[in-house]
């Protein structure tokens, strides 16, 4: 799967986001300082926001252009926002299977969710919340996975463990992934490519390693 973002324009408070970038298989870091527009770009790809103009395509599928706006529910995008956004009134099981159960068994195995399934999401630790949010997004078999700073809000001591899970997901459930972060160590640990965003523009794109 190749995700193409071409000339996507959206005016923001401080600057205008203007992005062209191509994300192909593997995990691509979307790297840059806070406020560079990383989350906004994810929201544009997920369909939560509408660009003023531009093109977004997934392989042959046009998702956004002059005449097209595919709503989020038909985009096949797995989005894990920074704050997890777990549904607080539902159990872990209901959260994980909210979008269906196409990929359920594999996801539960890889992320070791089984022992958490019957718990209330209110009783999860930061790291467990991340895993559940990740599982919920992956269960729908998305064409692309969007991770917004998946290690933020996780205790320092637990970060390595969550990172291990992310590596397992990358290796065992290959989904093209955009990984938003502003930590170079995370980029080096998990990503194959890096796209650097500054004030709404891509200033660099290269492979890592």
């Amino acid at each position, binding site marked *: 799967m190749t995700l193409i973002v071409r000339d996507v324009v959206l005016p923001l408070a401080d600057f205008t986001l203007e992005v062209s970038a191509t994300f192909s298989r593997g995990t691509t870091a979307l790297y840059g300082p806070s406020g560079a527009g990383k989350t906004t770009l994810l929201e544009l790809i*997920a369909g*939560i926001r509408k660009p003023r103009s531009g093109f977004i395509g997934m392989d042959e599928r046009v998702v956004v252009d002059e005449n097209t706006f595919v709503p*989020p529910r038909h985009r096949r995008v797995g989005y894990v926002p920074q*704050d997890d*956004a777990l549904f*607080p009134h539902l159990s872990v099981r209901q959260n994980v299977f*909210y979008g*269906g159960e196409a990929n359920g068994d594999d996801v539960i195995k890889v992320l070791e969710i089984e022992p958490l399934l019957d718990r209330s999401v209110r009783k999860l630790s930061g790291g467990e919340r991340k895993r559940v949010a990740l599982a919920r997004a992956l269960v*729908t078999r998305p064409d692309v996975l969007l991770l917004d700073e998946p290690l933020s809000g996780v205790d320092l001591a637990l970060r390595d463990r969550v990172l291990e899970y992310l590596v397992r997901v990358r290796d065992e459930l290959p989904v093209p992934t955009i990984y938003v972060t502003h930590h170079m160590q995370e980029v080096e640990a998990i990503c194959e490519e890096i796209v650097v965003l500054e004030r709404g523009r891509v200033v660099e794109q290269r492979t890592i390693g």
Partner: protein
Amino acid sequence: MSSEELQILGLTLRTAALSTLLILPPALATAWVLARYRWRGKSLIETLVALPLVMPPVATGLILLEILGRRGPVGGWLHRTFGVDIVFTWRAVVAAMMVMSFPLLVRAARVAFEEVNPRLEQIARTLGASSARVFVTITLPLAARGIISGMLLAFARAIGEFGATILVAGNIPGRTSTLSLAIYNLVQLGRDREAFRLLGIAVVIAFIAVWTAEAFLRRTNDAHRA
């Protein structure tokens, strides 16, 4: 309680409950639109919705009398088409209660909807849920306590309704005489002891409704903090 008191209490509770159920769908729809959308002229709708809260209830009753009377646009149509009369029947009691308590329910439901993190609705959509499913499975359950609390307040307000009711439903003992109207009647007739008995009942109902509503809201706040 005497049989007369039971009859008054029964009529009051039945009409107030029916009024609260009837305003629920339109109040939720209005609250949701006000909480989630912005458009030109929105403040006009907000003001119109809130109007019965601040207008003299008697004036609201007069408007209802004009609209629902046999010569009014709605009342006339109902009379010709279904042979149903509104004014000076229990239906007018319900109509007056509905108009007077609608703003309270809209206000409470709107706050409840606004407290639901839009992020959760967005994520549900990316997981493939339709707008209707998002509303039923995410928005409504998360706003439920606020909405129930609003329903209790609307119910309490309906029970206390007087000014609009007396105009549009009259004060017909045994037919349209609710708790508030009956108290007024008894005082007019100098039957103060009986008036005070009804007053006691009214206080108990109001106390239970408000106390329960507050309890629901407290639990919502605790849940949001968790």
